[in-house]
């Protein structure tokens, strides 16, 4: 086993860990597994460092990147990198880091260009990670740099110039100085009771609006899904109170056969059937009839 060297003094206030010193004589001691071959490593060796180490041979232009970006990225990130809904904003936000609500983008916050290439190749597009080729990744990276006004529209990015493109906030990062606060363990008369004021409070009856931060849905299907999640899912996901389970074909077929209008009307006014009970609007009577229709439509359309 590895040689354990205990920290000289494990006194309180000194959380010095017990360090392990590795014994070179024990390399391959167990011999389990197989030695990794170069071609096996190559398929997974995707990481890029700020100094450009790891960048594969290739290139891509802002012009090529625009086409790929519009087709594969803009749906979530917006045509100008402004972000759709709560998906990340990629551009803008310059000099906003001291604002009450900073906008942290590649241009305003990120320290290294390499991170952009690495992340796009590793994890994007969101629904198809690692589907972009090397050249496509260079092109999209170049286009996002262009959206941040960091390169011109005729720019071409490659493995040689990428690490030399500095991002504006490169010097904005510091190492961890914690512990950075020093409270004391006072037990009595620690503060003046008269000076205690409640600065903020949530409602004690747990009325938090779960949807307050969601952007208005842009399509009917999304709106229906959103209402479903807020109001219908509690019962229709589990079948509680005899509710037909969302997406379960055999539970929906006979209902759908009765027509959407009938289902919507029963959902609005309430209905007691042989197998369960649908309260009027599922109990969420603040919802409009149209919102109920959207939610029912969503559930009906979810049946395979």
């Amino acid at each position, binding site marked *: 086993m590895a040689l354990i060297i205990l920290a000289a003094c494990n006194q309180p206030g000194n959380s010095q860990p017990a360090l392990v010193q590795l014994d070179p004589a024990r390399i391959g001691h167990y011999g389990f597994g197989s030695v990794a071959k170069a071609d096996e490593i190559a398929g997974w060796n995707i*990481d890029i460092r700020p100094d450009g180490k790891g960048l594969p041979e290739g290139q891509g232009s802002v012009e090529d990147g625009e086409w790929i970006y519009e087709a594969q990225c803009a749906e979530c990130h917006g045509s100008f990198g402004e972000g759709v809904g709560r998906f990340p904003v990629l551009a803008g936000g310059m000099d906003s*880091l001291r604002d009450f609500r900073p906008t942290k983008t590649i241009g305003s*916050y990120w*320290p290294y260009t390499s991170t952009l290439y690495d992340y796009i190749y590793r994890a994007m597009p969101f629904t198809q990670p690692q589907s972009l080729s090397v050249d496509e990744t260079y092109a999209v990276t170049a286009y996002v740099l262009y959206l941040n006004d960091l390169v011109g529209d005729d720019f071409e990015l490659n493995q040689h110039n990428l690490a030399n493109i500095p991002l504006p906030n490169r010097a904005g990062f510091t190492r961890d100085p914690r512990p950075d606060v020093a409270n004391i363990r006072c037990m009595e008369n*620690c503060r003046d009771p008269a000076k205690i004021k409640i600065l903020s409070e949530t409602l004690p009856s747990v009325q938090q609006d779960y949807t307050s*931060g969601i952007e208005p849905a842009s399509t009917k299907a999304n709106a229906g899904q959103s209402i479903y*999640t807020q109001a219908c899912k509690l019962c229709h996901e589990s079948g509680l109170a005899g509710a037909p389970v969302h997406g379960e074909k055999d539970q929906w077929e006979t209902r759908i056969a009765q027509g959407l209008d009938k289902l919507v009307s029963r959902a609005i006014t309430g209905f007691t059937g042989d197998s369960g009970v649908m309260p009027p609007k599922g109990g969420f009577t603040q919802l409009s009839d149209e919102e109920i229709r959207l939610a029912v439509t969503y559930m009906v359309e979810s049946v395979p």
Partner: protein
Amino acid sequence: MGDKQLDEWLQSIASEGAALPVTERRGFLKQALTLFGSAAVGSSLGTSAFADAQNLPPNVPVWTRSLGSGVVSNPYGKPSDFESHVKRRTVDWLTADRIASVSFTPLGDLKGIITPSAVVFERYHAGLPQINPHEHRLMIHGMVERPIILSMEDLMRFPSTSMIRFLECPANGGMEWRGAQMDRLQFSHGMLACCEWTGVMLSTLLEEVGIKKDARWILAEGADGAHMSRSIPMAKALDDAIIVYAQNGEALRPEQGYPVRLINPGWEGNTSIKWLRRLKVGDKPWHHREETSKYTDLMADGSAREFTFVQECNSVVTCPCPEKPEKNKGKLWIEGLAWSGRGKIKHVDISVNGGVSWRPASFTSQVLPKALTRFGLEWDWDGSPALIQSRAVDETAYVQPTYGQLRAVRGTNSIYHKNAIHTWKLYPDGKVSNVQIS
């Protein structure tokens, strides 16, 4: 009717209804749901309202007068149907979708210090991958003498070790920097769990591959769609980092990284890469997206701290809390959880007057390094409004700070590493709210 009330109400209906014979169940549901739209449903209508006197003394309950189900009715077991309200929950507005999102541990319903595997909070960056362990490989390469590829079977042949350690997302409580926002304990502190983790010390694997002289950092990378990656300093890798394949005695849950993950005890959960596929040894950090754009702490002056690994000393009262309002005046057992990424918890003090005076709590669990520690204190509540707080001190003598102290140094935009003393306001009617006080 608020979401929580609705939730509890439906759970009560579900659990009570499930216990009834089919014929009675239908009538029960109709009766219960008739009340559904009524605003009269309040905290007084808890599950006790559903207790049938026929099952209470002096009567002999129905389950005592009949046979139960046989062995292996549930070969892997499951909680009682009456516990169906104990579950992970999410807050949809926090994230753009549920694929790259988070759910929260139901801390208010848990006991002791071990978090059941089934309700450990989730954090995904590209959803939950379903991985065939026979096809999963862990590659260790880079600045090593002998790069290797391990199957799960290979990995489990190495000497095994187990440790109980907490796991916490550095954004736990991050929604509270500007003011009280989350209306219950599950959401204010629920990106937190504590499990027994079993696996191979990372140092054992590094000795097996042999690291080169200038090796200083290790890139850990996941097999999920995000290929989640973090740079880990060699000192941590050689200290207590562990390559984990089991949790609380069973295989890792898929949500926790099945079949194998990294655990960096006491450090921000994001570094403990799940679905681990690759460890690459190098001489410098990689500055990947999750350690630059995210998981860096923005200060008021516009600078940002990077590689803020340690989860500092923290604590929270779990009873009472908004989910568990007090029903009775008189003797009240206040309890909660404390933890520190720097080691063991040394003291926890409790205040019921907003920090004017404090009383030391006693520990009611084992006190382990970098693990949740449970504390409790008896208090005579006279029914007056109270401001209940806990304040933990760890073995390095670090005292959990106030919001004021944290904000004075860091401002309100740092998102991560909020470990301030938390305050619950207890109302005379027993309800509890999340407050921040001056």
